[in-house]
């Protein structure tokens, strides 16, 4: 697809500058600036309620689907295009910047139709849809398990399979960036491992931002980590560095498990 062939000159998937999100009277996120690099897994960590979910939802304009949130600042797609510009279609933003949620959110239709959902929105021809469905299920690491059950209701699969169907569904429209909100929080260790392996594969081609509550998972599965605390970005950098030589005391307290 076209999005894929456009070269990315600066290696930045998302350039976030002075991003603030408010809910009426109170600030949820304050003045966040960060570069999300291309083709890497960026982990977003921090204590509960610090704004991790709000942060990734503001990266593909999902914030505006809930009432009462106002967003300020700028988010530049591939370091160039302002996603909050009035001339930008949120629908296209969300196709390029996909999202996977904490709990599996398969639709009550077949496995095949779930993965085909985004392609049908684009009115793609059936033969292309068929190709993409298979390719996406392979990339999400769930093809072998469901290839005989494509017509089964997706809701009848296990939680771990459902979550990987959701990943496949997000991948089918070939996003450049995938935002994931605690994608393994409701999964068992084996499924978690599969999803992590999937992420590693995917990060060769696309950029991934993953919220996680598990410091161990951030250490295992990400190349960069951003630590949030009370709506602010405290520290951000290569995962190894952030865990071994944190610059901020707050970060050190959190990654060494002294609180949070």
């Amino acid at each position, binding site marked *: 697809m076209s999005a894929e062939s456009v070269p990315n000159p600066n290696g930045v998937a998302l350039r976030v500058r002075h991003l603030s999100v408010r809910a009426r009277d109170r600030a949820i996120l304050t003045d966040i600036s960060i570069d999300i690099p291309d083709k890497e897994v960026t982990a977003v960590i921090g204590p509960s309620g610090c704004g991790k979910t709000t942060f990734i939802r503001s990266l593909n304009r*999902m914030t505006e689907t809930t*009432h009462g949130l106002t967003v300020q600042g700028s988010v530049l797609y591939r370091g160039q295009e302002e996603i909050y510009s009035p001339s930008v279609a949120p*629908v296209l933003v969300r196709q390029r910047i996909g999202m996977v949620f904490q709990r599996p*959110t398969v639709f*009550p239709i077949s496995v095949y139709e779930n993965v085909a959902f*985004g392609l049908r*929105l684009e009115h793609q021809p059936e033969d292309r849809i068929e190709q993409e469905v298979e390719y996406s299920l392979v990339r999400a690491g769930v093809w072998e398990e469901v290839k005989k059950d494509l017509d089964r209701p997706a809701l009848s699969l296990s939680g771990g399979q459902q979550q990987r169907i959701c990943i496949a569904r*997000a991948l089918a*429209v070939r996003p450049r960036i995938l935002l994931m909100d605690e994608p393994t929080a409701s999964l068992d260790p084996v499924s978690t491992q599969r999803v992590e392996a999937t992420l590693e594969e995917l990060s060769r081609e696309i950029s991934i931002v993953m919220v996680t509550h598990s410091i161990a998972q951030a250490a295992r599965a990400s190349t960069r980590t951003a630590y949030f605390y009370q709506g602010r970005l405290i520290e951000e950098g290569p995962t190894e560095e952030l865990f071994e030589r944190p610059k901020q005391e707050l970060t050190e307290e959190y990654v060494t498990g002294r609180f949070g």
Partner: protein
Amino acid sequence: MTAGAEGRGEQATTLTYASVSGRTRRRLVFDRLIPWLLPLAFVAVLFPLFDMIFWVAQKAVPTFTLATLTETQVGFGGGLYSMILGTLILIAIGTAIATGIGIAAGFYTAEYAPPAVASFGRLAGNILAGVPAIVLGYFGYYLLVLYTNWGFTTLAGGIVLGIFMVPYVYRTTDVALTGVPPTQREAALAMGARPRQYLLRIAFPIALPTILTGIFFAMALGLGEAAPIVYTAGWSSTPITGLMQPTSFLTGAIWLFYDLPPSEGTLLTLAFQAAFLLILIVLALNVIVQLLSDRYRRRLQGLFE
């Protein structure tokens, strides 16, 4: 753990009904009675229903033949043909109107309307559902019979019946759509779906079993109404040939014929046959909606956990 250690001496039991007294004991005993009292209430509801069906069937079945369905009532003879035809056409018009408006309004309040407008819409729906059918009848009479100069017409009857049915379709649509797990909406929008696409592709299929139940419920209620129609569709014993003519209908037969003096025996029988037929139709509707919504609901297993 020993009772003795707490100074209760010989009192061997602390677990029986006898070991507690007063209010606690009365509560425990009452709890045990509930499984017996509830079935009584159940029977109290069902008994009159079955008694009524039996009473109607007793008067209607012995004389119920194919001719009852196919012949037109003439004088003191004939069957229910024109009334059946009238009822079917009236309910068809009513259902078309109620389904169209009700579902559209439900879509609007559930997805598009600002919260204040949505709660106003819901309030208006509840008020409309609470308006007595006879008031709707008068309203239709003034607006569709007198004001338009149509006179009594089947179309006016169908429209008023539709207005009567709208709030039920509207409310179930709204409830069913707002009851769709919000994660489904999130997921669809995050895929780049527009609200309309989310509604049609995801929310509507999920809400469909409930909406169907609402439509069939409205039909059952509409079938049983006489008041809104007598004032608008008038009455005509001959089978209708056009929507701008008056018509007869089953509930009208019950209402008009049941009050006649005992000498007019055949018409009284027709009233019972009309009632019997209505009961059968409503039962059939119930079975159909049950089967249909079960079929759709099976796909949704696991969604509402």
